[in-house]
């Protein structure tokens, strides 16, 4: 699943380059939305869905830090 999501994210970046609508000013969706803009609204929605899936399936296992592992002002050096 992780690999699939990475592939889909790369594909999304590739599909962003919608040269096929480059000269189409006639096609409108819902009577008012130019097709190129509608497509990119779709790209933004797809980004939200894919990154949401990435948060579920590709979340780094070591991201969380427990409070007892964290640096505290009274807990000594932070090493920088």
């Amino acid at each position, binding site marked *: 699943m992780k690999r699939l999501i990475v592939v889909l994210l790369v594909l999304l970046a590739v599909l*962003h*380059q919608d040269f096929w609508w480059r000269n189409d*000013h006639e096609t409108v969706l819902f009577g008012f939305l130019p097709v190129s803009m509608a497509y990119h609204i779709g*790209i*933004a929605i797809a980004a939200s869905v894919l990154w949401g899936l990435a*948060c579920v399936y590709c979340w780094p296992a*070591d991201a969380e*830090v427990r409070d007892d592992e964290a640096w*505290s002002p009274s807990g000594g050096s932070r090493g920088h």
Partner: protein
Amino acid sequence: MMMVAAGDMPAGVIQLWIIVGYLGALIALGLASNRLFKGTAVDYFVASRGVGPVLLVLSVFGTTMTAFAIQGSSGEAWVSGVGVFGKMASWSAIVHAACFFLVGVKLWTFGKRYGYQTQIQFFRDRFDSPNIGILLFPILVFLQMPYVVIGIIGAGNMVTAATSGAFPQLFPGQGLANGSVPFWLSTLGCTGVVWLYVSLGGARATAWANALQTLIFLVVGVVTFAMIADKLGGAANATQMVQEYNPSKFTRGVTDEHRKNYDEKMASWEAAKAAAPEGKPVTSVLKPHPPKEMSEWGFLSYGFIPLSVAMFPHLFQLWLTARSAKAFRLTVTLHPLLIMLIWAPCIAIGVWASAAMIGGKPVIPFTPDSPDANANVVIGRMVAALGDPMVSGLLAAGVLAAILGGMDAQFLSMGSMFTHDVVDHYFGHDALTDRQRLITGRVFVVVVVLGCWLLALALKQTRPIFNLAVWCFSGFAALFPLVIAALYWKRVTRWGAYASIVAGIGSGVWFYVRIGLDRGFSSRMDPEMWGLVPAAPMVVFATVALIAVSWLTRPPEAGTIEKFFSAGARH
């Protein structure tokens, strides 16, 4: 109590009250957040790392979006068409979320584990280089300062425009400035309010204020879009007008059909001009815009600019406020949707403006090729055409929210950088007490606010500073290879890091000077190098230098790798 009907008020007064109401709400948030303030530096700078997922998504979005999202995007769409949504908004939707996921979460982890409160603290440890701040600190401050100063100038201009005519006896002046709140006073008021709530509640107040600002964005975008669509006879009608007069606004390419259409419409306009009385402007016929092409390479290269969010100091500061790593999940997921929700209505309004007629007259009395063209006022004029001071006031509050939303976090992060990276590191030997850091931070926030306000007063007429804004994003983007390598590549070395900074920023300075000398530093610049936005080659140069020099120099110490990469260090 005597009630005064809105219609009886002088122009600009309702707008002023809406602005005052918004600023009052910010102060109230500052006071409320102060009740939770724990009196420690960690609480002041990073809200004791206690911000939950909903507040995080709203505050990160409010900080990331600048006034460009509302004001500039409409103006740019009016000039270049719907391609602006793809090159800026949908690229940002993909790349911003990637930066939050890949960079934000990791930096939060290291920040909580090792107590980092600035980026330089992290880089000092990661590259085992106590003095990397000597190079990085001035770069980060220099890249951030123009944005803050331009923001203050923008806020002053917005208040001037919105309150025009409110106090003609008290503040007489010429044009828009007649009767409006003067620039020095409006900028003092706005920066003063930001300083007040940052001082009262630190990072918590900043997060709350940004959340409010995000909500204001959403309301402004939707309300303005719906009302303008209605005024133009419906969204479908507004779109048809654009197809008729400026069809190339719906495409990135320019076809023969577009050129022919332009020639025909231009001939009609010329005929109307010839028939008009001598010296009178043509107000009954729309003047078409010259078709403008957007190259595919240029469009592609815009994907490099949103990489800048990975290195914004003020965003780093906000990331650190998260309660847990999981709090980022909502931000990563919803941020692309929020971008779409804000940008789409503003882009539509900008494109419609290119062919908008109300009462038989064009709403925008100039075209992008006119000498008096000003793309930034397009959305303001569209809203003014509604003749509704409430919507004008709401728009003013929305633009102010966009400006101040970035500014508060920038003030706080610059105060934090001065405190931790200069005073504590070089004068306190990283041994200042928490109380000393808190006091120093507060003092520096005052110094930064005052300095930026004075710079805004001094530079408000200095045109070249406005062009610097484009370059600031490119500069932060050029530092992306540095942060991504620091987090994911064990082999990156101190000298690779230095080389990357010098190559990325150095090439940017060279591009800026070269383009400025060619086209004038004061001209409205859409900077391009080899048909690409400068951020693209800057990121490439920074990456090549980082990899090449890292391979040629001694690998980092085992202890450093252990600290940042070994499983033992992370668990």
